[in-house]
């Protein structure tokens, strides 16, 4: 009995091991996403957007001498254990030339630390927003197409100060998004600019009532509440209860709060004192091109991080083309394909890009999520604006510096 079971287990393992027969001629990139786990609802749209870029590359001539670009999907499950496992498989079993993903900051940090940095593979994440990624000792191999939470928090602080906001209270969701934004905001507003933050408190998501949190936040006498949360989730509840009970007069949100759910649920007439920061690039030509293409394959362009996922995959393809398909040169090439100088390339313009690269002309990718232009840390600065609620949805008040 014992040997039979052991033999069965061994047989299963052998069968699964044999099932992997790698194909040669294709150029592979790893698409690591949190397919299972806490962001399982968001991941499919992000993966589809990245696959759209792969599809466009193949339709317009492929990589190099017409080689096919293949996106190999791996499940990073939004945790370091599966993130490193998926990255190891992508790098060693599939032999990918670059990795798009993983989706969560913790998985990015672990996969970079134990797999891609030692192996010298370039990684570009569409949704890892943790400021810790900036400081990674990565030999220039870790990039991202989404701005660090640090940028937005600091820009928002400067803008509020400029607009003459006084005492503020800060409520933030207790995850890496909320914490990252709130800390950057605090560092700039209170420490650098000398503004006053009366209360600074984290909250857990998904509670029915935040009245006790709000009562606590209102204690310092601030008239403005800054909320770093999601407008279609807990942030909406907080905003509603703060309005109902009159705890604060003015409200400020981060990009997560700039959600249509807020207007639909609360009504524009109640939101005259509400402003939110969010990336511009909202209405660019590039975005329209992406939206059209993504709708064409049945995707929802408004899905969160769809644009950054697409840009990450497209940038990876451009860098691979520029580096001549060799993974050693991808890191340097990545900095060259989006640095603000050269012929503009927009989403889907693979053929044009390919010709320009072949001719040795400098190119500059202007993506669906923004112009990107990587800095030395592989971060994108992001351009933000402050928005208010007008009669027909959100309207820009001013750009943020």
């Amino acid at each position, binding site marked *: 009995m014992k040997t039979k079971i052991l033999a069965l287990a061994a047989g299963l*393992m052998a069968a699964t091991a044999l099932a992997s027969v790698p194909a040669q001629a294709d150029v592979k990139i790893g698409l690591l996403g949190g397919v299972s786990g806490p962001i399982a609802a968001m991941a499919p749209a992000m993966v589809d957007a990245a696959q759209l870029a792969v599809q466009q590359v193949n339709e317009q001539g492929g990589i190099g001498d017409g080689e096919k670009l293949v996106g190999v999907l791996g499940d990073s499950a939004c*945790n370091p254990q599966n993130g490193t496992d998926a990255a190891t498989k992508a790098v060693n*079993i599939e032999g990918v030339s670059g990795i798009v993903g993983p989706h969560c900051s913790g998985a990015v940090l*672990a996969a970079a630390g134990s797999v891609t940095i030692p192996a010298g593979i370039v990684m570009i994440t569409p949704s890892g927003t943790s400021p810790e990624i900036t400081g990674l000792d990565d030999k220039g191999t870790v990039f991202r197409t989404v701005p660090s939470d640090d940028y937005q928090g600091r820009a928002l602080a400067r803008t509020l100060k400029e607009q003459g906001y006084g005492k503020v209270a800060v409520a933030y969701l207790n995850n890496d998004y909320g914490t990252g934004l709130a800390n950057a905001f605090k560092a700039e507003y209170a420490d650098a600019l000398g503004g006053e933050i009366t209360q600074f408190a984290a909250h857990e998501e998904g509670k029915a009532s935040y009245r006790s949190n709000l009562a606590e936040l209102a204690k310092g006498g601030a008239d403005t509440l800054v909320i770093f949360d999601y407008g279609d989730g807990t942030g909406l509840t907080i905003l509603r209860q703060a309005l109902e009970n009159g705890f604060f007069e003015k409200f400020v949100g981060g990009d997560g709060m700039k959600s249509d759910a807020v207007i639909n649920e609360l009504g524009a007439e109640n939101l005259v004192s509400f402003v939110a920061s969010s990336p511009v690039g909202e209405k660019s030509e590039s975005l329209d091109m992406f939206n059209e293409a993504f709708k064409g394959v049945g995707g929802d362009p408004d899905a969160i991080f769809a644009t950054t996922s697409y840009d990450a995959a497209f940038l990876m393809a451009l860098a691979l083309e520029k580096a001549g398909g060799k993974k050693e040169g991808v890191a340097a090439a990545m900095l060259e394909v989006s640095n603000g100088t050269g012929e503009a390339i927009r989403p889907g313009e693979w053929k044009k890009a390919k010709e320009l690269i072949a001719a040795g002309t400098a190119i500059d990718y202007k993506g669906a999520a923004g112009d990107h232009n990587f800095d030395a840390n592989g971060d994108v600065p992001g351009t933000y604006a402050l928005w208010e609620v007008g009669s027909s949805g959100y309207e820009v008040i001013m750009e943020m510096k």
Partner: protein
Amino acid sequence: MELLGLVNYALFTAIFIAIYALLALGLNIQWGFAGLFNAGIAGFFAVGAYTSAVLSTPADDGRLGGFDLHFVIGWIGAMLAAALVAWPIGKICLRFRSDYLAIASIGVAEIIRLVIKSEEVLTNGARGINGIPRPAGDIGYTESQIAYLVIVLAVLIVAYVLVERQFNAPWGRMMRAIRDNEHAAKAMGKDVEFRRLEAFIFGAALMGLGGALFAHFNRSITPEAIDPMVATFLVWIMLILGGSGNNRGAILGAAVVWIIWSVSEIATDRLPHEYAIQAKYIRLFLIGLMLQLVLRFRPEGLLPEPLRGDLRGSRRTTKSGADHT
């Protein structure tokens, strides 16, 4: 190149198996020896990982430490911290039996996770701790994996030998007596509550060590790693499948489950492209199915606990052998 890739993957898998084997050994002390249903492995794993991270990273303004100590001190510290955390928890919760203890320990693990996520002065909050030194981490990719595997295996072997000794020692027999019949053990004058606490603390220390090895391997630890699915339930499946009460079974279970968990993704990737996303869910299904099959057809696990019956059997052979001479 192709072969090197396979070697790298095998090394990585072996390191993960060794780390999980440590967790499974820790759980074996608690469940296999003492019958304590601890469903809060992730909590002790996290305490160990963060303790070692704080002790061995360079100083940082935003949080406690770092103290920039040698990684060995970090690992010892991880075991001590996990044991220290386990002590009051055990003192309070071990009065519960079976299911109730499981519920309490899930709660405890969740409390630990939220404290780690929220207390920025202690752990840098949701951002986690990065730049944890990895022993022999600066040499090439393959070489550093080999070096780390050697270290992890050495730790695992030491842990295995020590736990195995305890299992065969009078202490191990006493623990099993308490597990199987608490009242009889009490009647024999054994201090049941103290012994239970002992097993709970020893097991927690090993889990803490596993957490520390994990953090140093990845050079980072974030609250996302304290996911009950991969840090608690996967370990349970390993022990149940390998055979609770058997240390070799715990290690074998870790190997089999992790290999199926990891390699099955390579297999499901061969499905047609349009099923790529759905294929990922099949893995979760496979693990559940495996647990069901094992519980139905082989509840004692692949390598069952060596019971007294086996010992008597072996003694009888030697005796009859002696008769012949």
